């Protein structure tokens, strides 16, 4: 009997496919998310839009948030640690989190090194904006990836950019000859073997979800069209007027992302979505996607 194997960690992410993972700040929101059909919840003190509004240093949530949420739902519970913050990750592991998000939404703790995720039994999800970042995170032991998007903005454009870039880079790698692959590995700053795997399979070796800016059912369906295996929704649900309706509609649109009549139906009378932010209005220092590398 072996625990914490790569297959066990990645397998858990495989089971999330086609699903929606929702940010929740307390037990009550977690129950709403589960009832709407979320496949997992992310327990945190503040959703990204609140983190933006509050400013200052954003850290791992108070453990009681995670514990309360774990008590009330039977779906997996995830939690965020700062980039490079081993101890926050160990604390979340000790508390029994099912998955850890080494997340740029929190203020990074290390400007050079990410956590060596292979050392943990608990699986990790990490953000990536391009193929190089994606493969570096996998090399460090990430069992799942997500686009970074621009969290807390309700603006899908950056998530689209990241997903397009990664899939475009994968297509390019598929068309390279074996000898060109060595050079491309150096260019991207990634291990040759991982790049060879992408060349041969035409896909990433782990599940890749969309995240950062998903605010409507159509946003979620758009990301599925672009090749996402599932969707994370942060501020989009509990910063909208009627979270229950938004949560359920986003789940349905993710499942049936090519059924436009159904998406039209579920998009009716949802009330006001979360207020968005135009990305160009963000100061460079406020761009979360540029954290991590």
């Amino acid at each position, binding site marked *: *009997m*072996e*625990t*914490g*194997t790569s*297959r*066990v960690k990645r*397998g*858990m992410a*495989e*089971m*999330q*496919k*086609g*699903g929606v993972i929702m940010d929740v700040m307390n037990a009550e929101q977690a129950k709403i998310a*589960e009832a709407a*059909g*979320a*496949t*997992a919840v992310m327990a945190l003190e503040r959703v990204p839009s609140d983190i933006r509004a509050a400013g200052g240093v954003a850290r791992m949530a108070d453990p009681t948030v995670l514990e309360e949420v*774990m008590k009330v739902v*039977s*779906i*997996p519970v995830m939690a965020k640690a700062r980039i490079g913050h081993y101890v926050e990750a160990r604390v979340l*592991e000790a508390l*029994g989190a*099912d*998955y850890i998000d080494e997340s740029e939404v929190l203020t990074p703790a290390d400007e050079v090194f990410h956590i060596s995720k292979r050392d943990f*039994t*608990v*699986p990790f999800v990490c953000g990536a904006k391009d193929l190089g970042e994606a493969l570096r995170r996998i090399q460090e032991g990430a069992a799942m990836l997500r686009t970074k998007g621009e969290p807390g903005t309700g603006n899908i454009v950056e998530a689209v950019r990241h997903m397009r870039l990664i899939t475009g880079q994968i297509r390019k790698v598929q068309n390279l000859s074996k000898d060109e692959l060595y050079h491309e590995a150096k260019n991207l700053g990634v291990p040759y073997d991982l790049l060879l795997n992408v060349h041969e399979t035409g896909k990433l070796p782990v599940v890749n979800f969309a995240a950062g800016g998903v605010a409507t059912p159509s946003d979620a369906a758009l990301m599925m069209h672009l090749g996402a295996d599932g969707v994370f929704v942060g501020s989009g649900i509990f910063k909208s007027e009627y979270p229950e309706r938004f949560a359920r509609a986003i*789940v*349905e649109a993710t*499942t*049936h992302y090519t059924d436009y009549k159904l998406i039209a139906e579920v998009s009716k009378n949802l009330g006001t979505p979360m207020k968005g932010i135009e990305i160009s209005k963000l100061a460079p220092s406020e761009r979360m996607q540029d954290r991590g590398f």
Partner: protein
Amino acid sequence: MKIGVLALQGAVAEHIRSIEAAGGEGIAVKRTEELQELDGLIIPGGESTTIGKLMRRYGFIEAVREFSKQGKPIFGTCAGLIVLAERIEGQEDAHLQLMDMTVARNAFGRQQESFETDLDIKGINEPVRAVFIRAPLIKEVSPSVDILSTYNGEIVTARQGHLLASSYHPELTDDYRLHAYFLDMAKEAAAAGAKE
């Protein structure tokens, strides 16, 4: 043999790949009408709460019960096993309520307690690598249910006529023997149907 994989959420592509490797045709099923052309159905791993809710929303509960009445085989893995069960421990209602067993959800604990191991399975010669992820257990079965394998004395694979269930994920390995076993069940059912 055309084997559908219920594609509302979960490890759909992996089951399709395994069925095709075992010599069948794998089809992702999103609508109840698509059940008609199938010789068998797999309910994959995923989150049972989510899959159950979406099945209810889209009329799959009745449609799959009807599919089962025709004697067509159904294979539930992990969440799929929970969906098939007559009774779920600690819950008042179950989903399809087709297989006469009581199951316990997340019976091994949280994700950190997830594991892989080798299992002896009745009807398959060499041990099968089994990946358990937040896995359920079969706690009680009626005498009509055949126990195919146990782990630490607990039931993890079972068959009742045309219904097959595993606590673990055969679709996450490159071993296709359990899928081949299910394809054989579909062939037998098709042959029996043809005789009538």
